[in-house]
Structure formats: structure tokens, C-alpha cells
């Protein structure tokens, strides 16, 4: 079955959101454990957008964020991106290193934020792996502090060669008490999306 992403049913939407919800639940719990704090997760957002508009939907093309990017491979292919406002990235560093005003562009803090992104990403993907019964691997994480458009355009360029629309699953998470928030975005390639939706259909019909 071939799915046209611009014509997904409500059922597909709910199913994708539910899998994502479980994934993010696991991921943010691991973050909370690391940082010793309580977590609040907002309901995942699922949007179909033209590739050219993804950066705008992700928070604004020139908004500065700390971004960690991972490539997904194995049973499903795509990308996962964690976007953190500067204050959230600093808070992560501060909590772990006790440094007063951390510079997130120094190599030590960069690798720390990358690792946090990687743990979040891998935990999140475990939910997809369990559901689909396939292995999904997240690549080594890459971190940079830059504009959302610049962080994402390479991914979007790659995707634009195969599809016109992308499915964006994005989830906002917040750590209670210290005002930290962040976003996790996942973008799947069309074949992977078919696999995921095929599973959804097989389970429920």
C-alpha cells in the first residue's frame, strides 16, 4: 500500500501520535532522571508540511537554538532533531557540571548536550522499534548552536529529492520548576512511513 502523506486518515494521525507519545514519555523520563526533576510532556503535534515550510513550522527559520541532529537507520530511515532554546541547553550543562554560566559552544558542553540528545533520541526510537519489531539505530549525535533553518536545511534538501511533503512529529517537553523546555522532531522517509502505517493498519484492521 502506498500512502500519500497529504491524505492520511484521522486514524493514522492518532496512531502516529500515540506511538510518538509513548516514545517521548520514555525519553523525557530518562532526561528527568538525569536532571533530577519532574517532567511535563505536551501532546505530540503531527503536521504534514511542504518541505520548504518545515523550518518555519519548527519554530522559525532564523531562531537561534541549540540543535542536536541524528540520522535514523536500520528498520526505518529518517532524521531526529532535538531543538533547545539557549537557556534550556545552558540549564542542562549547569545541572550536570555545576558550572555557573556555561558556554554551550565549548567542546565539553557541546558533547554533553549531544549526549543528552542522543539518550533522548535513542530512548524515543526504542518505542518505534518495539512497536514495529525492527531495530532502529540513531547515528552519533551532531550538535550546533545556530539558526533553525540552517540546522535543518541539509536534511530538508535530502528529503526534497524524494518527497514534496514531510510528516513532522514534534513534541514539546518541559521540566517543572526550572522552566526548561525543548522540542523533539522526527522526519521519516517515505518507505519508512509506509512501514509504520502498514503496521498500524495490520494491527487494527
Amino acid at each position: 500500500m502506498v500512502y500519500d502523506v497529504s491524505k492520511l486518515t484521522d486514524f493514522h494521525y492518532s496512531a502516529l501520535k500515540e506511538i510518538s507519545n509513548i516514545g517521548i514519555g520514555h525519553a523525557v523520563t530518562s532526561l528527568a532522571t538525569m536532571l533530577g526533576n519532574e517532567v511535563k510532556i505536551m501532546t505530540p503535534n503531527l503536521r504534514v508540511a511542504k518541505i520548504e515550510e518545515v523550518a518555519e513550522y519548527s519554530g522559525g527559520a532564523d531562531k537561534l537554538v541549540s540543535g542536536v541532529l541524528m540520522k535514523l537507520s536500520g528498520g526505518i530511515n529518517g532524521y531526529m532533531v532535538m531543538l533547545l532554546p539557549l537557556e534550556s541547553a545552558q540549564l542542562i550543562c549547569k545541572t550536570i557540571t555545576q558550572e555557573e554560566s556555561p558556554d554551550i559552544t565549548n567542546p565539553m558542553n557541546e558533547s554533553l548536550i549531544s549526549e543528552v540528545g542522543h539518550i533522548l533520541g535513542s530512548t524515543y526510537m526504542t518505542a518505534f522499534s518495539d512497536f514495529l519489531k525492527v531495530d532502529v539505530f540513531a547515528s552519533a549525535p551532531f550538535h550546533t548552536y545556530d539558526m533553525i533553518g540552517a540546522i535543518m536545511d541539509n536534511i530538508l534538501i535530502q528529503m526534497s529529492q524524494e518527497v514534496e511533503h514531510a510528516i513532522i512529529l514534534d513534541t514539546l517537553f518541559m521540566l517543572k520548576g526550572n522552566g526548561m523546555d525543548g522540542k523533539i522532531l522526527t522526519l521519516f522517509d517515505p518507505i519508512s512511513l509506509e512501514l509504520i502505517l502498514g503496521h498500524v493498519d495490520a494491527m487494527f484492521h
Partner: protein
Amino acid sequence: MIVIGMADYAVTRSPEKLTTLGLGSCIGIAIYDPVTKIGGLVHIMLPTIENARFKDNRAKFADSGIPFLVEEMVHAGASRRRMVAKIAGGAKMFSFNADTNLNIGERNIQATKVVLAEMKVPIIAEDTGKNYGRTVVLDTDTGIYFIRSATKGETQL
């Protein structure tokens, strides 16, 4: 200020400004005619429309977007002989791009230069490559191309 999205373009005249936000591997090509003060900006994503699966948007590719922009500027009253270009973008944001022989930023820069040379539009300034994002603004009153980056401040071309 006219904001141009990814794979988008616009042509305007003084005193209007044109901008495009958060260029990573993409390129922002600004073309200007200093006499009529007509300026154009295109935000390309890929080097070539040839072999592309979706060809409906010419502004997406260097080899179709640049000729398209020049055409639109001529249509607006600019002189082709007076046109000059300034280009920015084509960064390599993450090192993993290296494993695939597809350093898309570099390929975009090369294609942009080849196309502009073929069209005989001289590149009089550029800020390309490296590993950071850029937001650009073309001031059609002066022809100045402002480049802002996250950590390197603002420069003028």
C-alpha cells in the same frame, strides 16, 4: 521588507529590502542593477533541476532559479548588462555530510558560480562555505548585502 522562503524568490526595487532567513547549505543569490535599483533574491536548495523528481518550482535549483530570477528582473525593467551578483550560504553545518560525497553546500556554491558565469553576471562579493548559518538582507537602495550569523556577527558585502 519582503521575506523569501526556502526555494522561493522575489524581485523588487528601491527602497524595498529583500531577506531570506537561516541559510545553511542553501544559497541566497542576490542580483542587483545599480542604475534602476532593481534587486532580486533567490533561495536555492539544490544545484540542478536535471534529473529532479519534482520540477515544478524553478526557484529551488541553481541552474533554473538563477536564469528565472534574471528573466524576472529584466521583465521588471533591469538591464542584464548592468547586473551584478552577491552570493551567501553553502555551509557544511555537520560533519556527517562528509561521509556521503554529497557535500551539498559545496555543490551548490560550484553550481551557482557556473550558472552566473554562463549568464555573464559577475559575482562581485561572496560569503560562502564554512560551518554556520546565515540570514541575508539585500538593500535595493544601496545594493548592500547584509549577512548575519549566529556567532560571527554581521558583515556587509
